[in-house]
């Protein structure tokens, strides 16, 4: 090169002219602000962004390195109108110039809205919002995974709701930035991490209120797809009641706020206590009425004809038995009396034989008032007296 340049000073090598252009352009155009529409947007695996900025009549290539693009809160989409700030650089191997973008902002809020609508339409067409894909939210979760910033008011609100409603539950927080650079990526990582565990019944993805820009991470396609691919049911609770995000559409259940998300995720313990009280009351009543019903049927059975017949059989038998006993007693008594009489007769006979023997010898018995007078002192001279001889009895006065 040096050899030729001594003689042909006006002949430049490609490298020389490129180098001159590079120096000229790069020193003349720094601190540029350019508005244009994004096309051919590509985010490379390295993290760098490549795209073309164009308007109706012209286009310019752009690069945005990883360190710079991580500070952009949204993922650019083709057709989005943006304002980029940066410098012109020349890339000698390809002989072209490009804008080295340092900052990128949307050209207006309407651009975000448009991007939102576009993504919503695309994902809807793909079926990511289909109602019949929505998973059922468990009634009594034992572990809830939470994707939010652990130092946020939204998280504190969720904790206090869980404490009040259902303190049996366990909260597992995968803390994530929920706005600004890298928020969408962190949310995706947290969702995947929680979903990979087998002890999580439910995932809440959310954050408190903010501007459209603040909430933007929840409008990113990667977040929507992470929720869609999640095997665990997901409840979204982003911003305020009026805020709808793409995440809300794809989630299995949309809650208007993070607080509401936790309310939807947990059963109310006062209702459970109520159910237990109710059980105790009605079941106690039921068991008493069951027992009473059975008592009643026992009484009915006992008083039925069959049981009464049995009872009267016993009574009849008892009566028969009584009769028999009575008869036996009677007979025995009669028998006894009969023998007693015989005995008495015999005894009298026996006694009379003794007296007659003595009378036969000539003794006489004196009788007054039908009684024998045994002593002289008992004799009454005035009374009628009978004398009993062996052969006869005579009246002497």
């Amino acid at each position: 090169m040096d050899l030729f340049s001594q003689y042909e000073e006006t002949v430049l090598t490609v490298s020389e002219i490129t180098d001159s252009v590079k120096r000229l352009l790069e020193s003349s155009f720094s601190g540029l602000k350019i508005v244009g529409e994004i096309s051919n947007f590509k985010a490379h695996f390295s993290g760098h962004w490549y795209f073309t900025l164009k308007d109706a009549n012209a286009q310019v290539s752009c690069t945005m390195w990883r360190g710079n693009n991580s500070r952009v809160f949204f993922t650019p989409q083709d057709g989005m109108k943006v304002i980029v700030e940066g410098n012109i650089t020349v890339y000698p191997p390809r002989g072209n110039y490009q804008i080295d973008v340092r900052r990128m902002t949307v050209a207006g809020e309407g651009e975000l809205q448009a991007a939102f609508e576009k993504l919503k339409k695309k994902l809807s067409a793909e079926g990511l919002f289909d109602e019949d894909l929505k998973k059922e939210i468990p009634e009594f979760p034992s572990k809830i995974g939470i994707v939010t910033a652990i130092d946020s008011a939204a998280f504190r609100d969720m904790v206090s709701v869980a404490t009040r409603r259902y303190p049996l539950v366990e909260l597992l927080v995968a803390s994530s930035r929920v706005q600004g650079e890298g928020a969408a990526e962190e949310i995706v990582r947290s969702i995947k991490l929680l979903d990979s565990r087998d002890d999580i019944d439910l995932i809440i993805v959310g954050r408190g209120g903010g501007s459209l820009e603040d909430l933007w991470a929840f409008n990113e396609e990667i977040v929507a797809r992470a929720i869609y691919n999640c095997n665990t049911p997901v409840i979204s609770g982003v911003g305020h009641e009026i805020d709808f995000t793409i995440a809300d559409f794809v989630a299995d259940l949309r809650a208007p706020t993070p607080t509401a998300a936790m309310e939807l995720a947990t059963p109310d313990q006062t209702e459970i206590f109520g159910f237990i009280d109710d059980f105790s009351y009605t079941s106690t009543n039921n068991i008493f009425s069951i027992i009473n019903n059975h008592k009643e049927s026992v009484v009915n059975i006992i008083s039925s004809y069959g049981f009464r017949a049995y009872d009267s059989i016993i009574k009849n038998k008892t009566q028969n038995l009584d009769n028999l006993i009575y008869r036996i007693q009677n007979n025995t008594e009669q028998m006894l009396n009969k023998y007693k009489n015989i005995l008495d007769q015999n005894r009298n006979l026996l006694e009379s034989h003794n007296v007659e023997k003595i009378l036969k010898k000539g003794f006489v018995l004196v009788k007054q008032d039908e009684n024998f007078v045994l002593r002289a002192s008992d004799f009454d001279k005035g009374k009628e007296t009978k004398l009993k001889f062996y052969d006869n009895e005579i009246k002497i006065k």
Partner: protein
Amino acid sequence: MSGKKKSFEDSLLRLKEISELLEDEDTGLDESIKLYEEGVKLAKQCYSTLAEAELKIKELKADLEKDFE
């Protein structure tokens, strides 16, 4: 699904089932009394489990770093 708290849900479902069985006229006396005893026991368990529960919060950060870096 961690066993201990899953059984809280199971207990509640069983309680619901028992209260329905106790209202069913086909359930016999012996069975009813057994069910009632079981129900009262379960109700007490559920009540004290819930009354004594304290919210547990864990952060998954350590795992996150381990898994992804």
